[in-house]
């Protein structure tokens, strides 16, 4: 029985409404995203599995699109996420300015080792650009984040930015990861041992490890 994944991360998309958070999500999870799924079920998050450094990383992406104005709701997610996308729209100066607010919110309320990445979306709309790439770079530097300009429309940098954040989360939890690996190995030994003893038991406790 192959394991579906080794670890599970929760990533959260933050940013003003209309910056294209949901578009990014749709694009990224393309293969698992069928419009037919959303009619009745809620899509509070979407899933995708990435293979990073030999580890099957299942990422669960939260998108609270449409709920930005509920003051306390989005913040409830901060505590439960390991990584955060701060998304603005390169054609909207305002959405860029708001990144500062979102970022300081995260600094204030999110766990210390939460990983962040800055994303300037809609890079295909060059003619309407209001925020220079350099500005994005600068801000990202100031907050010590990586920075990507993306386009959900042309699929530019979508996988890259999601993978990058997932990698960062992995690194940030490296210690845990090593322990997980060891325990996985032990698990195998244990399984072998049990077989010797004639006990068959298919439990794999680590199958759904989740760091949260």
């Amino acid at each position, binding site marked *: 029985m192959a394991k579906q994944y080794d670890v599970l991360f929760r990533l959260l998309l933050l940013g003003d409404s209309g910056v294209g958070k949901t578009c990014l999500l749709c694009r990224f999870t393309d293969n698992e995203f069928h419009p037919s799924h959303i009619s009745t079920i809620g899509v509070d998050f979407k899933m995708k599995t990435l293979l990073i450094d030999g580890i099957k990383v299942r990422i669960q992406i939260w998108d609270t699109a449409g709920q930005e*104005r509920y003051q306390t709701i989005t913040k409830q997610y901060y505590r439960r996420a390991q990584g955060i996308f701060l998304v603005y729209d390169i054609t909207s100066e305002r959405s860029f300015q708001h990144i500062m607010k979102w970022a300081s919110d995260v600094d204030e309320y999110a766990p210390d080792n939460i990983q962040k990445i800055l994303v300037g979306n809609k890079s295909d709309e060059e003619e309407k650009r209001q925020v220079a790439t350099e500005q994005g770079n600068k801000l990202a530097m100031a907050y010590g984040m990586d920075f990507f300009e993306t386009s959900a429309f042309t699929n530019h940098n979508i996988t890259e930015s999601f993978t990058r954040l997932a990698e960062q989360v992995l690194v940030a939890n490296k210690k845990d990861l090593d*322990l997980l690996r060891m325990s996985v190995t032990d698990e195998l030994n244990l399984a072998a041992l049990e077989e010797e003893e004639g006990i068959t038991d298919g439990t794999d406790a680590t199958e759904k490890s989740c760091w949260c």
Partner: protein
Amino acid sequence: MGKWEISMNPVQEWGEELEEGALYGITLRREPLHIPANPKEAQPCVAFVQYRTSKVRRLKAATLTRLVNHLLEPCCHEPDYRLIFLSTYRTFTTTRTVIEMLFQRNKVTSDDGNSECHRRRLFLLIQTWLDEYSEDFWEPPHHTSLRLLLDHLPCLSLCSLAQRSETLLNKFQREGQRKVRTFLFPSAEAVAGVQAEKNEGEQCSGQEVPYWENTLDQGGIMDFSVAGISEQLTRLDAELFVKVVPFQCLGSVWSQRDKENLSPTVSATIAQFNAVTNRVITSLLCCSTSSQSQRAGVIERWISVAQECRQLKNFSSLRAILSALQSSAVYRLRKTWATVCRDSMVIFDNLSETFTDENCVLTNREILVEDGSQPALENISSKTFKHCSLSRQMSTSSGVVPYLGTFLTVLTMLDTALPDTVEGDLINFEKRRREFEILSQIRQLQVSCSQYNLPHHTRIAAWLLDQKLLTDQESYELSINLEPPVDLSSPSPWSHRKLSKKLSSLLTVTENSSRKTHVDQISVSSSGSSGSDMEDLSPLSTLKSQSLSSSCQNVTGATPSSPDSSVFSKSQADLSAPASAAACPKPILASHHKRSVSMTSLPLYNRQVADSCIVRVSVEAANGNMYKSILLTSQDKTAQVIQRALEKHNLEHMNSNDFTLRQVISRGRELIIPDKANVFYAMSTSANYDFVLHQCPKGQKKPLCATSSLGQYSK
């Protein structure tokens, strides 16, 4: 295989048909054909069923003209088409355009022999439009579309409709003069209402409510009844929710950025939601003189209100209260939370678990169907609120105020995922059909709201409105003032709680496996006794609600009654013990152990991490066991710790009142933990976490009594 599928699925996608300016989706619907029973043949011949297949055309995409024409076509298979169109057309056109097109078309076809039928369909359409979507015609100051409609109607001798439109126009004009549309400024209106009622000498509309609940002008949450608050919240929420224009919830309307707010009715519900969260936060933080226990009382109160809201199926205020209690400023008040009584914590955990975002759509759907999903919750509530829940449920049987945010997200996602137009620039009507499914759920819930019949509590209404709005920053600062941060690096209880849950699920797995024995051996290694651990399970499970809810403020992952919980609390306590104990037996055990440690903040011996730690308790002059390790949390009172220690030492037959708990500070020096102390806070953190149970000489009272809160040194 193919045959099998066909026989399983009565509806089959067949394909698409493209006509000029319209794309139809074709489905084949198979329905059993009922042959009129011939009494002679009936019995032998029922071995097969005959089916009839009918072809159903569904307009998937079309030009605007075709969409409008389809409204009046006789061959319209889809009964909901009219409603879907009326609910969503403003995303791709205007009211005025549709009216023009309808009547233009009408001129063309008026010579038709079918004109009577045609007129009939037009009548029905406009009737629905005026009755259920009157909002569409609100175009101050002139309401031109409505006037246009008025011009056309009499020509077609649709006089009754003309009359209706006239009435609507008059109504709009009156409202225009007042300049207050009811949905626009609900809070202003509410304030005005409250003021008016105050002026009328506290006469209130609706049902009269006895004023036993208010004592002072300056009321606070403790002055009002739980039922009163939840009723008033529900009343306000329901009022606002009923006024929501479903169209305004659509992703393309609501999620507009940098544009003036096109969804005032939606904003109004959110403003109310935010007002409730703010009310919760201010009631806790804006009273700098309050003591910890007073604040804990306020938290308990709000939890009760949340629970009542759940009973009333007011999921909006329920979410508002829960999210406010979980907001950083409130949530970080660890000492306050530690004083919140267990019953409340159990309710709180249950509610938060049930109404998290992940399953809140599910929850909403459950509500739509029926809501018998939470037996555990009902049990708790019936215990706590038996006196009012029964009668309430009868009287307001199925009013529901949903948390609208869920719908907004789903609609935003639909809007993002589905294109507005498809090839050939046809309007993607399939998208509108999908959106309509959600909108009709909202409508359905709005209808249910009319079933509420709640009294109006004027004082509570005034109290809810009269509040200082706090920014996140302000509330955070207030919170810091109340409880200064102790250890910035220590993880929040919340992460600890998640962690514990995680751990419990890991350990649950081990329960069924042979490794269980290994787990048990860990505690054996530290205690020296053997075989007793299996029995330990049962007394521990009787303690479950304490150990579980206290250890992680969490009953969520494992319901209290489940066998897992005992394994969990037990194993957690036992597992971690050898972390610092020198002997760490087998490599297999190490794996368990490592994995647990990898979850970061597991309780450790000699260190208080988050809200828990491991202590070792021995019994003075007892049965030869050295010590037993016990998981101590910030919720544990002395008596419970003694009880648990006795159980661990197989001394549960002893009366825990005969023992005192002392921490061994150094050789010959002991810290007496008072009877009713919270051991976690009373203990010395600079000494080893070693405790000893002293048995008091018979008949002698315990050396220290309840009230003292500080430990005393004794020689």
